[in-house]
Structures are given as structure tokens and as C-alpha cells.
């Protein structure tokens, strides 16, 4: 099973690939809405890619109040 660090790294990589930014521009504590300039619709797209990649279901209400990659990774980790 993934460690939290590995999960966080994979989330950052997925976000960088999907939103076409350099991976090293993203850090775990970044606010993904602000850093990536995305809206809630694009966040749902990222959610779908996360579910597909980690083979989990992550209800969108679990993302309430979550805006940084590290906390997002914690939510994912709890489903692995």
C-alpha cells in the first residue's frame, strides 16, 4: 500500500500532467484552486482522474474545505 508521501507525490504528478504545469512548480501545501487557476468543474475532472488512478471512490463531499494537495492526499489515503 502507498505511503502518504507517495500518494501526495502521485497527486502532484497527476495535477501537473492534467493541467499542463511543471511538476516542480507544485508543492503539497499549495492551494490547488489558486495555484492551478481552476474552477470547481475542473476540480471534478481532477477528482475523476484521481479515482481512476488510485482505483477508489472519493465522494466529492470529502473535498469540502479541502484546497491543498496534502489534505487531498490524506483523503485519498484513507480510501486505499
Amino acid at each position, binding site marked *: 500500500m502507498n505511503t502518504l508521501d507517495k500518494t501526495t507525490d502521485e497527486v502532484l504528478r497527476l495535477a501537473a500532467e492534467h493541467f499542463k504545469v511543471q511538476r516542480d512548480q507544485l508543492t503539497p501545501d499549495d492551494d490547488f484552486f489558486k495555484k492551478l487557476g481552476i*474552477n*470547481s*468543474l475542473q*476540480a*471534478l*475532472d481532477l*477528482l*475523476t482522474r484521481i*479515482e*481512476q488512478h488510485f482505483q477508489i*471512490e472519493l*465522494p*466529492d*463531499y470529502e*473535498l*469540502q474545505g479541502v484546497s491543498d494537495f496534502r489534505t487531498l492526499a490524506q483523503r485519498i489515503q484513507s480510501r486505499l
Partner: protein
Amino acid sequence: MNIFQGETLSWQVLDGAVELTLDRAPCNEIGRSTLADLEKFIVALPALQRDAHALIINSTRKEGFCAGADLRETYRVAHELPNDERLPALRDFLERIHHVMNTLDEAPLTTIAAVHGVTFGGGFELALACDLIVADKMTRFCFPELRLGLIPGFGGIPRLKRDLGNALVRDLLLTGRSINAAKAQAVGLVSQVVAEGDALRVARSTAAQLKKFDRGTAIAAKKFIKPIPHDELRQEIDIFCDLFMRPAVDAGLRKFVESTDALPYLP
């Protein structure tokens, strides 16, 4: 009229399939203009289906198939009307949209919803009125109405109950969460999950397959296996109207309308 271009949608007959294409920014929200165009479509449908064996409903909007009811218009209209006119106007709108949905649901040709991206609320309900759903892998389905203090009002609950087990209906309705295409296929809602951007192509391929079968037999089979839950559909309108006048709904709509996110889809 085999080809039509309306304000919010267009249709054409292509290779024996009627293609109804939604195209209203930002994500095909269903308000009065879309309803008017859909009503034109169902008037034209008897003539269109003479030369067709399938109907494909799809969207050109990159955001998705359809985000549901036009909540900004709903809020604005509710506030423009005198109090005693709000409920009759709402009921009229709902009855008209139900007539469209029911007509699509029992149309004497196989109907396919080719969906992608956001397929929420009324958009989900439009897909549920179809016989088959072909979803690209980035589709998300959701009934977010409870977030506004409402229930789905375009026939979604009776149609979802018709297709799925009650446990999943309760999950979707009571949590307001969205599910992805893979999950939707796993529970039997979606017939095919396809690559991103490929839903229309696969729907056309499916429609081409249907062309091989005797149309009269297909219509008889559909009528037998797909009852229209008329009583529950009428009940849904009544419950929706009862709920709509509550202050919580106005507050929920105002929050949506005042959101700075152009497409506020997260709960």
C-alpha cells in the same frame, strides 16, 4: 424539418439516426429557451422518426452533457413574479418539461444519451429518459438538488428507481454526491464507458447496429420492458412544488447565484 438550428440546440437526421445536439453556454442549463426548443423537437419528432430507427442526444459543450436546470433563471423568475404567481409558473414549467421527458422516454425508436463531463440534475434526468447511456470516461453523474433543499424535479427519481436498486438511489439522492462513469457502469446505469471525447462516435456505432433489427419488434420490446412511471412522476411534481416555496430553497438558490465560481459544482 430534417435539419433545425435553434437557440439552444439543433437536430439533424444522419445515417438513419436523429441527432439532437445541445449547445447552450455554459453547460446546457435547462431554462425557458431550452424548454421551448425541446418542445419544438418533440413536435417534429413524429416526422423525423419516420426515417430513423434511433435518437442520439449529445452536447457540444466541453464542460459536459448538461448541468441541469438553469438555477440563475429560476431564482430570477421567482423573484420577478408576485408571490401568488410563483407556484403556478413553476408547476407549468415542470409539467411542460415532464411532457418532453415522457415523450422522449416512450419514443418509438431506440434512444441513446451520449454523455461526457457534467451530467447533473436535469441533465442526468434527460439521460435517464433515454434507453441507453454511452458515457465517456470523464463523465460525472449527480443529483445535487438536496444541496438546494429540493429533490430532482424533471422525473429523475422515478426513472432512477426504475433502473437501479433503491440503495443506490438513496445514496445519490441523500448525499448529493457525484459518481464517475466507471461506477455508473458497475451499477448498471451506463451501458458503455468509452475514451474521452468518443461518446458520440460510439453512440453512432451503436445506432448503426440497431438498424439491422426489425423496428416494429424493437418498439414492442421497448414498450414491454420500459414502463413509464406516470403516477410517481406526477407525485414528484407535487413534492417539488411543495418544497420549492420553503425559505431554505431561496437561500440555497441565492448561494448558488452569488457564487463567484462560474460553474459551482462542488458541494
